[in-house]
């Protein structure tokens, strides 16, 4: 590397002096890896369709009749997403889309399997496939419509405000509806939707936009109280208000899972922005305090904790006990797709889909799913690390943490590691709002990663041209 440069130094007039082009100063760029993505996508289709076929073979002894149509539909969706990336985000991370497609395919097959066993109690895979289509359409729309994620920073307060509005919607009489104790649904005609799922994306954008502007003030200005640098009220105030309001709404609506998720996002993003581990300590302490207080005083929470501590002697422990028996029966390699009885667990197709997978694919299959989530989160955090602008960093970290917390809370709850709270397993479980919102999150992540991995544009013009043209600053 040094020898051609040394020759330059001998003088610009010599022939050797013209040799090295200015070139980018950066010497490390990421490759596009679109071929690798396509390869992984084909494998992911094999995962999804293989599960679908295996379910048919296990339940009826034949491959499902509609596998050609179903497979084509799934393949078209995946290829459409891939082509969009090739056209609009060619440097985007190559692993995220295949993982999402594999998880979604496996989830579809599992929903189909439980529908075959109890057609009256569970929804079919067709509805979920329709939601997936909407999700992929939104994915494409985000990638095509949003050319630069930094433009979202302009909508900091708009995003925060609309997140709170969306969270309030289910409380509006007429369209809001209470389902299984939580008032988090809105119904418009025959359509139902969980606005909280969209609100979480908006809140991440709002937190990111706010923190990127105020991180220095938050980290440096303020007093030190008990090992923690407390920021000034005027710096923390707006975001604290935004967050407390959303938490209050969720608590009022009895939505434990989402309040846990929002609390976590807020803490982690504050930590990422200020680099002060004290926030995690304070936040963790506050969380334990709040959790204990709600255990004592909120009946709903007391129930959940009692069920968690001793599910076998509680009438309400039925669901979790069924899930545990299912996973226990599945053992190391599972009963085989279509061979277990995951339909015995209430909501084996949504909240408890992890237990259903554990029953039919065993520990081996469930571990594969957990590893896939791990890779997904790792890629998100990696995007955040290599991203060049702070807003992108914060949003990518926030979105990755959304997935991480959701998976931890759900799978932890199903496996009785922590008390069960209702959250969806991203991409796997049945539920339109969650699936659509998660596809949008993936599109955002890919947009940021496209920016982060794209080699920087050449900054310097040819030296001779630079001599010839002078930039005159008029302002």
């Amino acid at each position, binding site marked *: 590397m040094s*020898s*051609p440069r*040394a020759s330059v130094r001998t003088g610009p007039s010599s022939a050797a002096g013209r040799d090295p082009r200015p070139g980018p100063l950066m010497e490390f760029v990421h490759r596009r890896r679109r071929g*690798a993505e396509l390869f992984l996508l084909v494998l992911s289709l094999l995962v999804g369709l293989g599960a679908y076929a*295996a379910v048919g073979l296990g339940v009826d002894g034949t491959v499902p009749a509609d596998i050609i149509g179903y497979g084509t539909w799934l393949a078209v969706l995946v290829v459409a997403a891939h082509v969009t990336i090739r056209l609009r985000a060619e440097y985007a991370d190559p692993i995220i889309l295949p993982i999402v497609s594999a998880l979604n395919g496996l989830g579809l097959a599992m929903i189909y399997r439980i529908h075959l066993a109890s057609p009256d109690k569970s929804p079919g895979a067709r509805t979920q496939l329709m939601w997936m289509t909407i999700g992929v359409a939104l994915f494409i729309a985000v990638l095509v419509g949003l050319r630069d994620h930094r433009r979202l920073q302009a909508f900091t307060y708009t995003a925060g405000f609309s997140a709170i509005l969306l969270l309030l919607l289910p409380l509006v009489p007429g369209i809001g509806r209470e389902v299984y104790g939580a008032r988090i649904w809105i119904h418009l005609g025959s359509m139902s939707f969980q606005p909280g799922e969209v609100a979480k994306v908006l809140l991440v954008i709002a937190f990111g936009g706010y923190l990127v502007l105020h991180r220095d003030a938050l980290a440096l200005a303020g007093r030190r109280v008990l090992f923690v640098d407390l920021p000034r009220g005027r710096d923390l105030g707006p975001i604290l208000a935004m967050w407390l309001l959303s938490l209050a709404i969720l608590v009022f609506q009895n939505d434990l899972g989402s309040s846990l998720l929002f609390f976590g996002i807020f803490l982690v993003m504050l930590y990422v922005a200020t680099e002060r581990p004290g926030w995690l300590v304070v936040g963790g302490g506050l969380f334990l305090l709040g959790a204990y207080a709600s255990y004592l005083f909120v009946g709903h929470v007391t129930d959940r904790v009692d069920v968690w501590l001793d599910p076998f002697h509680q009438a309400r422990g039925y669901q979790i006990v069924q899930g545990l028996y299912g996973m226990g029966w599945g053992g190391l390699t599972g009963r085989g797709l279509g061979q277990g009885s995951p339909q015995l667990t209430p909501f084996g197709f949504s909240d408890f889909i992890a237990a259903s997978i554990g029953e039919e694919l065993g520990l081996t299959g469930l571990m594969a799913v957990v590893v*896939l989530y791990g890779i997904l989160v790792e890629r998100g955090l990696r995007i955040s690390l290599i991203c060049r602008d702070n807003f992108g960093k914060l949003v990518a970290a926030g979105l990755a943490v959304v997935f991480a917390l959701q998976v931890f809370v759900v799978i932890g709850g199903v496996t009785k590691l922590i008390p069960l709270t209702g959250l969806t397993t991203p991409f796997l479980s049945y539920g339109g709002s969650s699936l659509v919102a998660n596809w949008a999150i993936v599109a955002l992540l890919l947009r940021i990663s496209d920016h982060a991995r794209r080699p920087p544009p050449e900054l310097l013009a040819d030296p001779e041209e630079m001599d010839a043209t002078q930039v005159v600053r008029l302002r």
Partner: protein
Amino acid sequence: MSELTLVLIRFAYLAILWIFVLSAISVIRSDMFGARVAREGGRPERRAAKTAAKTRTKPAKPRRGTPTAVAIVEGGNKGEVISLDKAPLLIGRGNDAAIRLDDDYVSTRHARIGSSGDQWYVEDLGSTNGTYVGSSRISQPTAISLGTQIRIGKSILELRK
């Protein structure tokens, strides 16, 4: 469906699932180490460097008046002199920086010094506290010459012969 076939299907599917997981991991692995050098004509250049090393041609002597090193003249690392041979040099607080400054006001990847033709440039890499040439904060690659003071955090750097 015989019992055996079902068992085979079960294991085949688990195999597919794990093959997918492992291929995803292998793509991550190659993504980590597979980044290539971006410099245009990077490979021929490297080859040229290799042949140059083989024939043991002496690198041409630096012209008089051309900077060969960066000196830190102010701040915690005062007195350090770093050769420009391995340019472009990354300046920052991180471990991968060629010029490491132990200074809280310096970002992990703060700025970069590189050359284009005969001219040396300093470029800010989106640092928090900015890079100053003279008294003005720079927003694009800025030409520097011998003795130009570059301020990064509490440190001041300059090019030396």
